[in-house]
């Protein structure tokens, strides 16, 4: 008798539990994020921002009166891992919505998967990853479109400061080549004469001979498309050897100069460099200052990028866009959400975003900023406007370029 009673009680409990879980059934958002490997450091900071958005949206009562839950795995920056992870997210974890991993390479293999299944994918700082697949439910959070969107600002500034000749130095790797090709085309269109054009192998550690070769050319503009470690090595080489008094503009597509440890370590060596960025202090977007303040606290606890200018705001914005689309359509229907994102301007902490038909920003907003008056070994200086003076886009400009390059370094 006792056995039968406990059996009935067990059944009832299980029934209640099932009922309760149906009512409070969370909306699951799934993603992989590179938390180790070459994109690991950036990925961890980006993930923190997404978690902040999840906290915020849940504090407001969630989406459609349901809590939001993030299911995230580490893809180790290895594209071989992402198809398996995203299939698990969809078929085992049964997530409702997908965010893409940070970066082009881990994202590329999941594009056919989402296209085949007709799923919305919020892109995460990838570059032209939808170019071949042409998925109409893809929305990238990065402020660029094609390669020319990165550097029309840089080339325009170069022309404005009197540049006539240009030297190119690019890593023979991944998108550095795409970027350099975009810049090469823009330079050609602008009538700049190319006096030096060289690719260097990604394993290069000593840039002294390359820097000497560039100095020999007496170029007005020096465009570099490099990866984080190379960027640091190139800046150090330029500091030791000098690039020549003729150079008016130096920088362009140097990846890594946006990352806090590099900025702090290089300090005053950065002065004069005009480089691309996604966000720098001084850009007055609604909510960004408050976000960065909260981020700084959490980043210190989580021991990730303490400034978090480059990726975190855009990852938070990714959440904000989904929030607006879900609230706007009152639905989780992927098609409706995609249509909403295509047809509405999204309000985010990185400014208003409107999407073009290819899921990239209709109005790209790559910042070109010059490091000015940067002191050594001081991280907090970068939190204030003026250390990275915005030269482009025109409407956000908050200072003038110091030319020639050498003058800004004195």
């Amino acid at each position: 008798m006792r056995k039968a009673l406990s059996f009935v009680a067990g059944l009832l409990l299980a029934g209640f539990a099932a009922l309760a879980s149906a009512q409070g059934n969370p909306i699951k958002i799934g993603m992989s994020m590179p938390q180790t490997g070459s994109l690991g450091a950036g990925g961890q900071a980006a993930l923190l921002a997404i978690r902040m958005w999840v906290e915020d949206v849940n504090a407001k009562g969630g989406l459609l009166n349901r809590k939001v839950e993030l299911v995230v795995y580490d893809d180790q920056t290895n594209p071989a891992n992402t198809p398996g992870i995203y299939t698990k997210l969809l078929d085992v974890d049964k997530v409702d919505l997908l965010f893409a991993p940070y970066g082009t390479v881990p994202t590329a293999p999941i594009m056919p998967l989402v296209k085949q299944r007709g799923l919305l994918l919020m892109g995460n700082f990838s570059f032209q990853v939808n170019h071949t697949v042409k998925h109409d439910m893809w929305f990238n959070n990065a402020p660029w479109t094609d390669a020319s969107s990165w550097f029309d600002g840089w080339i325009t500034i170069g022309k404005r400061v009197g540049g006539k000749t240009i030297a190119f130095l690019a890593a023979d790797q991944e998108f550095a080549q795409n970027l350099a090709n975009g810049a090469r085309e823009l330079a050609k269109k602008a009538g700049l004469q190319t006096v030096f054009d060289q690719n260097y192998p990604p394993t290069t550690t000593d840039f002294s001979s390359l820097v000497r070769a560039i100095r020999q050319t007496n170029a007005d503009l020096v465009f570099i498309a490099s990866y984080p470690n190379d960027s640091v090595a190139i800046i150090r080489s330029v500091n030791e050897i000098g690039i020549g008094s003729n150079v008016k503009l130096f920088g362009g597509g140097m990846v890594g100069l946006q990352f806090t440890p590099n900025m702090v370590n290089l300090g005053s060596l950065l002065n004069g460099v005009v480089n691309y960025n996604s966000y720098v202090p001084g850009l007055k977007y609604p909510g960004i200052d408050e976000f960065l303040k909260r981020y700084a606290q959490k980043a210190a606890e989580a021991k990730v990028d303490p400034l978090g200018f480059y990726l975190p705001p855009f990852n938070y914005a990714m959440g904000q866009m989904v929030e607006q689309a879900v609230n706007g359509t009152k639905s989780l229907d992927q098609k409706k959400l995609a249509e909403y994102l295509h047809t509405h301007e999204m309000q985010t902490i990185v400014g208003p975003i409107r999407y073009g038909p290819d899921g990239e920003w209709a109005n790209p907003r790559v910042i070109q900023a010059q490091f000015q008056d940067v002191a050594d070994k001081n991280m907090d200086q970068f939190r204030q406007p003026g250390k990275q003076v915005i030269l482009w886009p025109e409407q956000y400009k908050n200072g003038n370029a110091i030319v020639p390059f050498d003058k800004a370094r004195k």
Partner: protein
Amino acid sequence: MKFWIGAALALAIGVGLPLLPVNEYVFYAGYVVLTYVVLATAWNILGGYAGYVNFGPPAFFGIGAYAAVVLFKWLGAPLGVQIAGAAFMGGAMGFGVGLLTLRLRGIFFAIATVAIIFIMETLMVNWRYVGGATGLQLLRPQVELYASYTRMLFAVIAVMAVASVAIARYVQESWIGRGLRALRDSEEAAEGCGVPTLRLKLVACTLSGALMGAAGAPMPMYLSFIEPASTFNLAYTIGSLGSAIIGGMSHWAGPIVGAILLGSLQQIITVTISNEMNVLVVGVLLVVFVVAAPEGILGLFRKVLGRTSK
């Protein structure tokens, strides 16, 4: 006979399972595990039987993957032709590596095989036709019979796994295996006894290379993408070498046991603990097995069986 019944059974499961309404994730994860079965089995032909430690599986795997991409892009070749082309390229490179063994042995041979990875990677980084450093996105063709391309790829890699194990078993049990074991113990003594060491090493290298190349062929279609850094990733060395060491190098079954254990463990860790643990687990397992069970799981098994029968 037992082997062939087992092989037929494995083949039936591998080809039949994707036809059933099983969760797609099983095939994504299973594909990776079976790739390691092929790689580890292929590695063991040279590393286990002949004692020549090859650190270059990514080079063979990568050349296979890129051969498949070239055939697909250039001729629109079907997967079968891509695999055959990849096996040929892998085999040809294996033959070249076999010639290296004329002058290099032990650690020097191992270092030379590492160099091949970097040479191949640099070549592909600079070859724009296959996407260069940026990589190339590929659109999968329509698939018949199976519900999705990944399911078909699972069936294909299952067939390849069974075939490679059968080849490894043949090598082990035939005159080739006996000769390889002889030259592993002492190359000079083997040569003195009339074992054609160079010819055997060339056969082993070519076979091993061809199988690794074939294993790489379906990868670009599995990912719908190819780029050099992940294709020539040293993880393939760790996976194939680790599987053979953990499973046991003296028998064809060793790499299968090791690859299934290691591959599954890695897949599980990726979606559970999900961080550096993945690499750490392989490292710790390798250290534990090298110290505590140098003959691998099979050796351990034999030891335990031997003890209980006494």
